[in-house]
């Protein structure tokens, strides 16, 4: 097992910079998830760790070695690909044993390792089948089995579940979580699905445009996002953003209001907030609750989605603004119904003023 250190890692394709200086520490045995919208560089970063892409700048350490120039096969890593990448002309057994066969491992040892991997992944009865006879989930298990037998220091997963249907994805997600616990290996996992990131990760790295936006435990990112992008990206449905004016402020809080937001005091802790009289207010849909009187927002219901345990309400405010509220109960709303909303003001997020474009980008990335 080993830790992985990325120091000032850069990647360029000709004049185009894809990764623009990334520092990440992955501790031994940690499960780290890289998330971000398409094109943010997360897969490129993983492929650089794997040795499938050259590193343009910076150093990459696995364990105690700098591995910038070390070939993929000698980095002590195993990788699971989105498309499974299992060999169609080999049986499951041959696929799992591929790395061992190449390394000319003695047959007895090879058989033992294959059986061990098959046992962990509960596919002992599939060993003599060909990939074409397997379901998507089983194929991905074969790919994971191949990774396990190599006994790698670091497991790399490149969006391993995106080709599976929703039910299977949940199953496999849990299995990967269990696998991490039972093997105790360092794992780096790339996904664009923030639910996978939240549930699996010890540490999440949010990437955008080749930069790390924030790195930390899932709940840190959820409760204390560094910036508007992370706030919008983590959490579903996405955080609501509204422009507000700062009426007054002391060191730790600011009174804000706007034509659609009644005045209230919000905590201030982010850099850049309060330097101008404007700010962007972020409220998680889960924090909003309907109230009979008062409240800081009011509007009319345009749509309510009842999901059984929660109800997601789309509310039109005045001046063309809208917010989503996710109420943790099954409630019936009629379209056009008038609604007042309030929330725990301590949970308000104030950001430096953002353009509509930035707000939209943050919300649509999730």
């Amino acid at each position, binding site marked *: 097992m080993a830790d992985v250190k990325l120091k000032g890692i850069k990647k360029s394709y000709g004049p185009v910079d894809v990764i623009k200086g990334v520092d990440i520490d992955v501790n031994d045995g940690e499960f780290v998830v890289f998330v971000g919208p398409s094109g943010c560089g997360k897969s490129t970063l993983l492929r650089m760790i794997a040795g499938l892409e050259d590193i343009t700048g910076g150093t990459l350490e696995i364990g105690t070695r700098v591995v910038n120039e070390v070939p*993929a096969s000698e980095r002590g890593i195993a990788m699971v690909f989105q498309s499974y990448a299992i060999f169609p002309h080999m049986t499951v057994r041959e696929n799992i044993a591929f790395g061992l066969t190449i390394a000319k491992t003695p047959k007895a040892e090879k058989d033992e390792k294959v059986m061990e991997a098959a046992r962990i992944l509960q596919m002992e009865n599939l060993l003599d089948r060909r990939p*074409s006879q397997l379901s998507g989930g089983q194929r991905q298990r074969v790919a994971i089995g191949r990774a396990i037998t190599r006994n790698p220091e670091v497991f790399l997963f490149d969006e391993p579940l995106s080709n599976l249907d929703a039910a299977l994805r949940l199953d496999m997600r849990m299995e990967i979580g269990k696998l991490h616990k039972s093997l105790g290996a360092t794992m780096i996992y790339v996904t664009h699905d923030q639910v996978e990131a939240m549930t699996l990760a010890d540490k999440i790295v949010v990437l955008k445009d080749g930069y790390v936006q924030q790195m930390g435990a899932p709940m840190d990112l959820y409760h204390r996002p560094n910036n508007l992008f992370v706030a919008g990206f983590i959490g579903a449905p996405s955080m609501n953003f509204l422009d507000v004016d700062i009426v007054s402020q002391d060191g730790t809080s600011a009174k804000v209001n706007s034509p659609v937001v009644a005045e209230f005091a919000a905590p201030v802790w982010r850099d850049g907030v309060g330097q101008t009289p404007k700010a962007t207010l972020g409220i998680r849909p889960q924090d909003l609750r309907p109230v009979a009187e008062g409240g800081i927002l009011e509007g009319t219901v345009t749509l309510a989605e009842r999901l059984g345990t929660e109800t997601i309400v789309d509310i039109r405010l005045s001046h063309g603004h809208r917010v989503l509220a996710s109420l943790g109960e099954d409630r019936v709303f009629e379209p056009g119904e008038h609604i007042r909303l309030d929330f725990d003001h301590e949970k308000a997020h104030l950001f430096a003023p953002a353009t509509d474009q930035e707000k939209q980008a943050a919300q649509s990335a999730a």
Partner: protein
Amino acid sequence: MAVVKADNRGLRLASRYAVLILVAIIFIFPLLFMVMSSLKPSSQLLLDTKSLRAFLPVGELSLQNYTDAFVRAPIAVFVLNSVLITGVTVLLCLFVCSLAAFAFVFVDWSGKAVIFSILLATLIIPYETIFIPLLLMVSQLPWVGLEGFELGWLNTYRVQIAPFIADALSIFLFVQFFKDLPKELIEASRVEGASWWTIYRRVVMPLSGPVIATAAILKFLFMYNQYLWPLMVVQEEAIRPVMVGLGYFTDQLNVPWGEVMAYLTVITVPVLAFYLSLQRVFISSVASTGVKG
């Protein structure tokens, strides 16, 4: 309504089969003519060409033409020579051209695009235009064999094989096929510690059945039909291929057509056998089942 639809479908199917049968007939009639004519005496054969009898086993049928043909020419030697020359060339071509294509597709090296363009450009040069310079060249080439050093490759098997091992078309076919193989399979192999050679041998080639079959058949036909080149470089009867052997039947005023047809029938057998043995590979392609489509 449903009946009308079913009728339409039946009609469409019938017309499709009609076209296919017509095409099959067009392709099969020359073969039929060849085989039937090989069983008839020359006098009857020529008369039959004026009617559909040419394609039917009618009249005086015997294997006499075959006996005569085998007496006139050492057919077995020619067929064996052709099978040897063609077989060795096809095998070497598959190996060399697939390796070249592998380097073009999977390995990064500078100048790759330029060299591939030049290679493709050679596709438009017919072999016949380079035969004279090639002849001059091979007549001067050195060789170290079992009998020691010798100069000049004329009158050998190797002069019929070596110039045709690598060709742009085969490389191009392999390149196109390799490009469609899932990149992740190669990357996964690299991560697992496979060398380039292992990836070529254990991953890429086992998945390349369809293109191997295609390249092999094209090469086989090209080599088996070689006439001009062996005529230029081989004088010894013992190493002549089948097409040159056809000359044994045409150097007289009176062409023994029955024997010619018998000869052609005999030399067609290896071609059909080769084609039929690879036909199945055309149909089954397994390359895409290992990754999500």
